[in-house]
């Protein structure tokens, strides 16, 4: 038995077993690290190394965008400004088949550009729009599917906290990943709109055309100029500053928070209560992610010291498979994992093995990272445990069953897979825009 097989089984198998027993992810990795550090990092000295690593792992400037991107979204949701986007988009889109479903996708795309939480986007659009669509005779699959689908796309379009986490853990350019997610994200949004229009044209009973209050002249465009464009200027600040090379992702994120606070104050929507709710919500999500990073950094280090990483990499790269076949295999593993585990655990389990392979094979890390993100966003939609399916069930009226939700999401999962395949065979879809960064 090769030297690396036992540590690989102990560390990867042990952490996976602990995860499935239900230990919080951060503590599952801390437990595994303690055993691994004792065995492979020199007993007590190894345990001391975990303490030092804990400090080094999270005191990193490149991780700072995580709380800052989350804070931007929290402020917009707690001040009620995000809801204004729906009104602005609804007045613009008038005579399309499946109009409200299209409004949900377009409004969701705008939310994606100003916030970084897939759950918040799905929950807000679901609670506000699904009851309205059902009341107007929309089939439950047409009322829920587009909202879940666009909620998942939130992960691809910056600002996205999970993208920063992926970049940081995998040592991939964070700006590159953030910018690179825009293309596939917009491609998916456009695909969703086309699908809705085609489906509702072929089968109008899915979304019966109903009367709606139409606005003319300035009134039609007023919410666009009053709310949507000023809110989108936050996206302009964050992405524009990065693309122009004026600031790092961390600095762009801080400017984004300042812009969000300024806009919320300009609308007189920022109360002390809303600010505290936003800060507490941000600390809750980012504190949890950062504690996981504390464990994850040492986990990768022990995996490497024990020889497990190298052993697995040697076996895979020496298998005779070509780089494309290996990358395709890694994507299939990610999609499979997405059925069972959350996005953070997916990264922690796979990155220590996948990234050395990516480096060994000379694969473009941005291209790989964007496909990684697409797989993770698919995981949010995959039955039976996809998180956004549960989120939708939680906010939709009781008449919407789990069977409706499973059927609703199927075409959007297929579209995500098609975009994944497209990026796989045509890398510039992911790498062209990051290549323009100064």
């Amino acid at each position, binding site marked *: 038995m090769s030297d690396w097989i036992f540590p690989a089984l102990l560390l990867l198998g042990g952490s996976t077993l602990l995860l499935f027993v*239900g230990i919080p992810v951060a503590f599952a990795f801390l437990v595994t690290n303690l055993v691994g550090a004792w065995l492979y990092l020199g007993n007590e000295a190894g345990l001391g190394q975990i303490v*030092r690593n804990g400090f080094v792992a999270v*005191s990193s400037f490149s991780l700072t965008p995580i*709380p800052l991107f989350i804070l931007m979204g929290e402020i917009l949701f707690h001040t009620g400004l995000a809801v204004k986007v729906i009104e602005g988009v609804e007045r613009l889109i008038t005579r399309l088949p499946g109009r409200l479903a299209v409004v949900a996708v377009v409004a969701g795309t705008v939310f994606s550009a100003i916030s970084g939480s897939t759950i918040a986007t799905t929950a807000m659009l679901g609670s506000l729009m699904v009851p309205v669509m059902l009341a107007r005779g929309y089939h439950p699959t047409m009322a829920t599917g587009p909202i879940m689908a666009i909620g998942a796309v939130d992960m691809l379009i910056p600002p996205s906290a999970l993208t920063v986490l992926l970049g940081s853990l995998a040592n991939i350019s964070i700006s590159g990943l953030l910018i690179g997610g825009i293309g596939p994200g917009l491609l998916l949004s456009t695909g969703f709109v086309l699908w809705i229009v085609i489906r509702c044209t072929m089968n109008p009973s899915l979304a019966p055309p109903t009367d709606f209050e139409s606005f003319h002249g300035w009134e039609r465009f007023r919410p666009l100029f009053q709310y949507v464009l000023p809110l989108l200027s936050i996206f302009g600040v964050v992405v524009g500053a990065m693309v122009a090379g004026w600031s790092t992702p961390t600095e762009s994120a*801080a400017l984004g928070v300042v812009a969000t606070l300024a806009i919320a104050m300009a609308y007189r929507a920022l109360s002390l209560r809303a600010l505290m709710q936003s800060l507490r919500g941000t*600390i809750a999500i980012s504190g949890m992610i*950062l504690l996981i990073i504390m464990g994850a950094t040492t986990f990768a280090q022990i995996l490497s010291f024990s020889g497990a990483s190298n052993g697995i990499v040697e076996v895979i790269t020496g298998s005779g498979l070509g780089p494309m076949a290996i990358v395709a295999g890694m994507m299939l593993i990610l999609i499979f994992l997405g059925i069972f585990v959350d*996005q953070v655990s997916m990264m922690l389990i796979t990155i220590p093995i996948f990234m050395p392979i990516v480096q060994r094979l000379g694969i473009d890390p941005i291209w790989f990272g964007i496909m990684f993100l697409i797989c993770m966003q698919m995981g949010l939609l995959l039955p039976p445990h996809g998180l956004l399916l549960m989120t939708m069930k939680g906010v939709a009226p009781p008449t919407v069953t789990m069977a409706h939700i499973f059927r609703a999401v199927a075409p959007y999962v297929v579209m995500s897979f098609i975009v994944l395949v497209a990026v796989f065979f045509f890398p510039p879809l992911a790498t062209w825009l990051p290549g323009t960064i100064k």
Partner: protein
Amino acid sequence: MTRLQAAFGRIYSFMMTLACIVLLVIVGSIAADVLLRNVAVPGLPRGLTAANDISEYGLYFCTLLAAPALLRAGQHIRVDILLRAVPRQVAWACEWVSDAAGLAACAVLAWMGWIMVGKSYAAGAMQTRSLVVPEWWLLLGMPIAFALLTIEFVFRMWRLAHGPVEPRSDAVSAA
């Protein structure tokens, strides 16, 4: 025990508030740095050199300050697919295993943290970035946070023993 838990709850809540303030300081320092670098303000330096250190140390302290409160609220995410699939009694037993493992890990880290703080203090080790501070100031957060996490795991087990025989409804995703 209930009053003791409530008392610790107030400590956690205070720590969360501190973390919120630290987060605002991070935002303010980075924004001030970018502003001062790009706009010449008479009487002020071109850039805030300590901004990087403030955000890095701030992130570390935010993590430690929030950890016990998040454990109390069940907001440290986990994978519950197996717990939902097995009989309730088995899932409940898994919760005990989970809490015992968490308790042991946090206790060891609290203990090792104290040892590392002592060693760093004795060696007079300094963190020399833009801000120069004794290393033990920074390391001290680890044993305190993990000692509180150890205590909270005890509370969790007490609540598990006195609650219904079923898995908890803790958070399952950060997305």
